[in-house]
């Protein structure tokens, strides 16, 4: 696939996307709602045979985002799918692990740190937080009271007295 063929193939899923941005020649952002992310991911991985690099989660101001980063190595492109999760109370998105096993751990990590539910994930156990970490506390959320969690904060309070 050359550059033109790639953008032609990407335009096949335009109806599922909100917007497509290309800030640099080799950097493409595809923006979609969370309900379409499974279908778009499946298209990118199975139809375009892109290489899945990693996913990231963000606590944005009015929504959560899960960003799926793909690489197209023949052209050196990085293609990122940004899935917006508007429900801040119970954020959930369809898991891509059933067709892309390499995403299993990163989805578990995002679930640990941001509390985003990945529906139909085959093995949604705790991955990186400590065993005694309280349920329902997600340390990378902006609203999380971090200074109340770490024990090192007790020391700095102690030195103030």
């Amino acid at each position, binding site marked *: 696939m050359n550059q033109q063929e790639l953008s032609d193939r990407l335009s096949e899923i335009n109806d599922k996307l909100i917007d497509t941005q290309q800030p640099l020649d080799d950097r493409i952002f595809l923006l979609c709602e969370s309900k379409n992310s499974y279908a778009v991911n499946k298209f990118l991985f199975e139809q375009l045979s892109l290489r899945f690099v990693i996913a990231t989660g963000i606590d944005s101001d009015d929504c959560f985002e899960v960003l799926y980063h793909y690489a197209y190595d023949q052209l050196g492109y990085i293609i990122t799918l940004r899935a917006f999760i508007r429900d801040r109370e119970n954020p959930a998105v369809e898991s891509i692990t059933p067709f892309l096993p390499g995403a299993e751990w990163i989805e578990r990590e995002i679930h640990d740190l941001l509390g985003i539910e990945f529906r139909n994930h085959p093995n949604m156990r705790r991955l990186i*937080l400590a065993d005694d970490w309280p349920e329902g506390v997600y340390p990378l959320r902006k609203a999380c009271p971090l200074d109340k969690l*770490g024990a090192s904060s007790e020391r700095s309070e102690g030195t103030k007295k």
Partner: protein
Amino acid sequence: MNWKIWSLKKSIWVFHVNAGACNNCDIEIVNLLTPKFDVERFGIKLVGSPRHADALLVTGVGTRQAVIRVREVYRQIPKPCVVFLIGACACGTGIFHKGYHVAGPLDKIIREVDPNAIIAYVPGCPPKPEAMISGVVKALSAI
């Protein structure tokens, strides 16, 4: 001099615990055993069990998950023993200060188990092998 302290200062056997380090300090510790520094000529060597150790070498910040194990390892070392905190993280949580996963600082964790623990600090990110040797010499001449 107390005979226990006298015997402690000969041929220190060391048990190494990684309490959430980035592996940089650990590499420098292994460097101590290479031919360039070769601390084994002083009888200092790494052992596989805390029950055989005279000194505990702790690297890393002391994460929530790891401090439980650090306490248990410290309990299993025959006393008296010396604790060496290697690196900026172990000495005072370093850049991870107030991190959500941090249960340290490690000197506080160890003093919870034993208020009279002998603790030596070797700061640096990572500390040079020379600094670690210097720390060992200073700690042994102080006790």
